[in-house]
């Protein structure tokens, strides 16, 4: 298997990186292009950008952010948030993103997964699952569906998803560690790689996740101290996880 990946996630709204406090107040965290470059220099293996504006104007702004990021970034990046059609995915990939991440739209229209995979390849399609109490949730984790998490992961992969981005609603934002049990259950059920998300509060938490899965998504732990990324990588490696050798 390739080396474990550490993936900072940036929420973008109105062309700025924002950080939500209890889902309401959004704090400005800076310019996405600058922050992306900074994380790339600090050894991020990949980046995820989530467009949380979900408005037509927001989409246009996002397209220009993607183009600017693609012009400076020499690591892969995924873009999600409001991807509802093959055209949305095409716009994102043609603007320079490597992969798109689907969430609610894939649930209401599962054939969207295969349609995008056929056009751009499975490696370009990530299906994001917000999981809680054994079932998939929509609308940023607020609405529970009756779809079972593991069953949905299996279906998404069989329809052409090249990776599952699995967020535990219970653990998200609490910085008490990832939901390892859920991550293991989903990863054992599918044959595509799985990114664990939600709950990273320390290097040890990330290492725990990377012992059982392919990649870990991190947000506040890096956003609070962007300069600390190289140090975080060293600490994760000290826990016995091999990350890619970086030249800094």
């Amino acid at each position: 298997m390739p080396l474990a990946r550490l993936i900072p996630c940036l929420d973008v709204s109105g062309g700025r990186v924002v950080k939500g406090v209890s889902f309401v107040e959004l704090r400005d965290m800076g310019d996405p292009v600058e922050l992306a470059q900074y994380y790339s220099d600090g050894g991020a293996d990949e980046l995820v950008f989530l467009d949380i504006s979900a408005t037509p104007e927001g989409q246009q702004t996002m397209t220009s952010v993607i183009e600017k990021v693609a012009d400076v970034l020499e690591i892969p990046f995924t873009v999600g948030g409001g991807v509802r059609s093959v055209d949305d995915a095409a716009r994102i990939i043609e603007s320079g993103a490597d992969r798109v991440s689907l969430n609610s739209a894939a649930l209401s229209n599962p054939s969207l997964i295969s349609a995008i995979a056929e056009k751009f390849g499975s490696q370009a399609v990530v299906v994001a699952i917000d999981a809680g109490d054994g079932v998939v949730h929509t609308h940023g984790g607020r609405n529970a569906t009756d779809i079972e998490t593991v069953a949905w992961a299996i279906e998404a992969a069989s329809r052409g998803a090249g990776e599952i981005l699995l967020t535990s609603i219970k653990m998200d934002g609490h910085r008490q560690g990832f939901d390892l049990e859920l991550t293991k259950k989903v990863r054992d059920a599918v044959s595509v790689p799985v990114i664990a998300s939600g709950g990273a509060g320390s290097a040890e938490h990330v290492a725990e996740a990377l012992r059982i899965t392919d990649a870990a998504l991190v947000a506040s732990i890096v956003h609070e101290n962007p300069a600390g990324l190289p140090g975080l990588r060293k600490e994760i490696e000290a826990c016995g996880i091999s990350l890619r050798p970086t030249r800094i």
Partner: protein
Amino acid sequence: MSQVVVVDYGAGNTRSVRAALRHLGYDSVVSSEPHLIRSSDFVLLPGVGSARSAMAHLNSTGAEDALRDRFSEHGPILGICLGMQLALEHSEEDGGVSGRGLLRGKVEKMQIDRVPRLGWSVVEPWNEAFYFAHSFACLSEDVVATSEGITAAIHRGSFLGVQFHPEKSGPAGLSFLEKCLSPA
């Protein structure tokens, strides 16, 4: 400064590879014009699109014949991912596609635990980590580098193909591209 042609398959994203070239100080143009492919200093086949539609586009534009001519005249060509796979004789992708056959070998779906194979992996004997994102891999007698036992690079004459994405592999990828381009 010499010019690089990034070959157009009629689909997908060539922005990243052009950004990497620009970063290294190379001017590039995206084209499937046969005369440009024959005469430019360097030709790069990017890793975007599906095997069948890319091959169909190359055939219909005359780019395919121009690539063969370029190879027989020893003009340097770098193929990335799909751009490498199409240089072999046959690919299993998209229900079976005939390749260019510049190098002997074939492309098969990988039989490994997790597909697609996504992430950074150390390439030997170069001892450098690059980014991979693929479901198919090359089987060829012209393999010059591997990662985890999987073909990472093939080389014959003026053609070099790599499975990884140098344009997505940070400083290691940029140095690799620079080395490839330096005679150009």
